[in-house]
């Protein structure tokens, strides 16, 4: 046993997969310690807030300020407030004025502004331009001038007699230490369509999905193993009957059965555990097949025959003379079942047949929500890409572990 384990942990593939899987598991346990609370809590009111650190504007104006004169500050401010729309409009103006802009890069804020400075003339009305458009350019020019001159913002509070009383002036050189602001929230993966913290939700969903995979894998392996052992060892009628059922369930796609059963159960009854069990119930066939063929090759070995002659019971023969020989095989089958269970849950949820949505998030449900609110077309990559990545990484690590084990136990496959 010890020797086998040492061998297994010498396989680079197994270790690679194991490390990835362990890292995912550890994140799952450790992250909630730093960020406790209900993962389904809606913290944001809008949908799909971008990833980043959010500083409370109110608290920031109250915090103690320092004055810094940073050379690039004005430029950054201009670049950030000059939207793509404004840039396109400026190009449009240059074109209307028939100015040569062939070597102008739209993203080069400095060059663009310099060009604007040189060429903008409020008194000239370009040919064919509507009055509204001319006014738009005037406003654009004004806001650009404001930004450059760096005027002062005044914070005012309502005084006792209802008048606004100036309470603070904020200049462009005022800075606040983020540690001094009372409320700062970092959302590494932003929020989803319901305004939930995606990272927190993702960690919790990963946990649930792995649990679903483990439960589905356990159910499938137990059924497959029992059927395979009985069919392989007993042979005859039992074998024929079990193989009859197995063959039928092999050809009817498990996915179709999953859809039918999940639909029949109904949304209210579909908890995560129920979904996992159903996935297990539809996925056992190939475990049964492969266990059976392994057992058939073991059935007539000398030590099994000896056991039989000694009058040992069926259960004892199976447990002590057959199971140990196929244990490595069963472990590998279990790993694959876990991985396909996680995938099956995700696919079911995408179809709208996943676990009910009110209790726990799962990877499939997160994907389903992101698709329903078209995160993929509105550029909110943080709502779906991490989910795909996590599903891929889990299944990649499990398959890598499986390949590693395969190479340890089947020397013919070694490279």
């Amino acid at each position: 046993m010890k020797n086998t384990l040492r061998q297994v942990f010498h396989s680079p593939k197994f270790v690679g997969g194991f490390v990835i899987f362990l890292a995912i598991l550890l994140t799952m346990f450790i992250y909630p310690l730093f960020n406790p609370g209900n993962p389904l809590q809606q913290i944001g009111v809008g949908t799909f807030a971008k990833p980043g650190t959010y500083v409370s504007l109110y608290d920031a104006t109250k915090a103690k300020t320092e004055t810094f004169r940073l050379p690039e500050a004005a430029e950054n401010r201009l670049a950030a407030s000059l939207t793509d729309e404004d840039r396109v409009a400026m190009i449009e103006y240059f074109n209307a004025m028939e100015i040569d802009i062939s070597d102008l890069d739209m993203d080069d804020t400095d060059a663009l502004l310099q060009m604007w400075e040189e060429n903008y003339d409020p008194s000239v009305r370009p040919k064919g331009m509507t009055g509204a458009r001319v006014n738009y350019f005037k406003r654009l020019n004004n806001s650009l001038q404001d930004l450059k001159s760096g005027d002062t913002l005044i914070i005012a509070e309502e005084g006792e007699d209802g008048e606004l009383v100036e309470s603070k002036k904020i200049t462009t050189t005022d800075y606040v230490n983020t540690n001094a602001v009372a409320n700062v929230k970092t959302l590494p993966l932003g929020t989803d369509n319901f305004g939930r913290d995606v990272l927190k939700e993702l960690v919790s969903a990963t946990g649930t999905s792995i649990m679903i995979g483990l439960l589905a894998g356990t159910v499938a392996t137990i059924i497959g193993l029992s059927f395979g052992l009985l069919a392989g060892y007993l042979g005859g009628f039992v074998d024929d009957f079990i193989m009859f059922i197995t063959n039928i369930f092999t050809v009817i796609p498990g996915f179709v059965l999953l859809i039918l059963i999940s639909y029949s159960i109904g949304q209210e009854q579909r908890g995560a555990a129920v979904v996992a069990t159903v996935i297990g119930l539809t996925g056992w066939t190939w475990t049964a097949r492969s266990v059976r063929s392994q057992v058939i090759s073991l059935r007539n070995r000398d030590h099994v025959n000896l056991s039989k002659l000694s009058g040992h019971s069926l259960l004892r023969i199976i447990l002590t003379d057959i199971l140990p020989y196929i244990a490595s095989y069963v472990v590998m089958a279990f790993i694959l079942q876990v991985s396909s269970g996680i995938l099956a849950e995700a696919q079911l949820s995408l179809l709208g047949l996943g676990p009910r949505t009110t209790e726990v998030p799962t990877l499939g449900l997160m994907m389903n929500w992101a698709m329903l609110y078209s995160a993929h077309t509105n550029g909110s990559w943080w709502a779906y890409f991490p989910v795909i990545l996590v599903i891929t990484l889990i299944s990649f690590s499990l398959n890598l572990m499986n390949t590693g084990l395969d190479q340890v136990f089947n020397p013919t496959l070694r490279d």
Partner: protein
Amino acid sequence: MKGYRKYFGKKIFWFVLTFVAAVILNFILPRLMPADPVASITGKLAGGNADAQAVARIYEHYQEEFGTNLPMYQQFLRFCKNAIHGNFGLSFSQYPRSVSDIIGSAIGWTIALQLPAIIVGWLLGNILGALAAYIRKGFDKVLMPVSLFLSNVPAFGMAVVLLVIFGVYLKVAPISGGYAFDMIPHLSWDFIKSVISHYQLPFWSIVLVSIGGQAVGMRSMSIYELNADYVKYSRFLGIKDRKIVGYVFRNAMLPQVTGLALSIGTMIGGALVAEIIFSYPGLGSTMYAAVTAADYPLISATTLIITIMVLIVTFLLDIIYGFIDPRVKAAQVE
């Protein structure tokens, strides 16, 4: 020839048996539902109608329509009789279209998308896997981890990633539907062009996912065969490398055909979900719409059609397998 007849006879027998089991399951499972589907449909159709008598009339009408007032075995006979005539009743969500009409318009899209995609993915994957096993070194070192990683990307994930990169950012392909939304299906150059441009992304997302899995399988089979005694013996005899590779490829290929037969159900499941991402007008999207609208006759018919499609493909693969591997036929004769 006698061997083949016995082999095919046995296969056909299994095919029919599985078909019957599939039909029975398809009939029974939705009927095990604890809630009364007719009641829920009545509730939906009646809407705000509070007139109890009218609701009862609607209920009775649908009971009649579905035959849920008949004993189970009569319902089953009726179900079979109607199914043979291609009659699956009316759809609830797309009333008054019939279920067979909806499925008829979706099935062509699904077959045209998935069959070529799975075949191309399988071929490319096998070629890459065999090359990796034969060349080894750098090619293998890069290709294998990439393939293993790719094969673990879920089909819907690949679909979303391709859609976002090529459809949303690069804008080289349309992101949804089977053809431009302002067109009516007809035979013209414009329509065919539109169909082809909509075809690319779903096609490649299925191909990319299946390449990975096939390449990994083919590589280990080929390595196994390359180490076999007959290869060493052939080398010893001085047979040309190219000829040996031909033998190796053929022998490694056989388990891959079985593998395809066994995994076709899973692959189609994944590909159907990928269809949803692209709103491709095939069976996957139909199923999604049916589930969302709780359209019970449509779900039941879609699953039955998918099962039958998988059955037919598996059956064909079994037949092909019998032809290319004489040992299978020989095993049946004994």
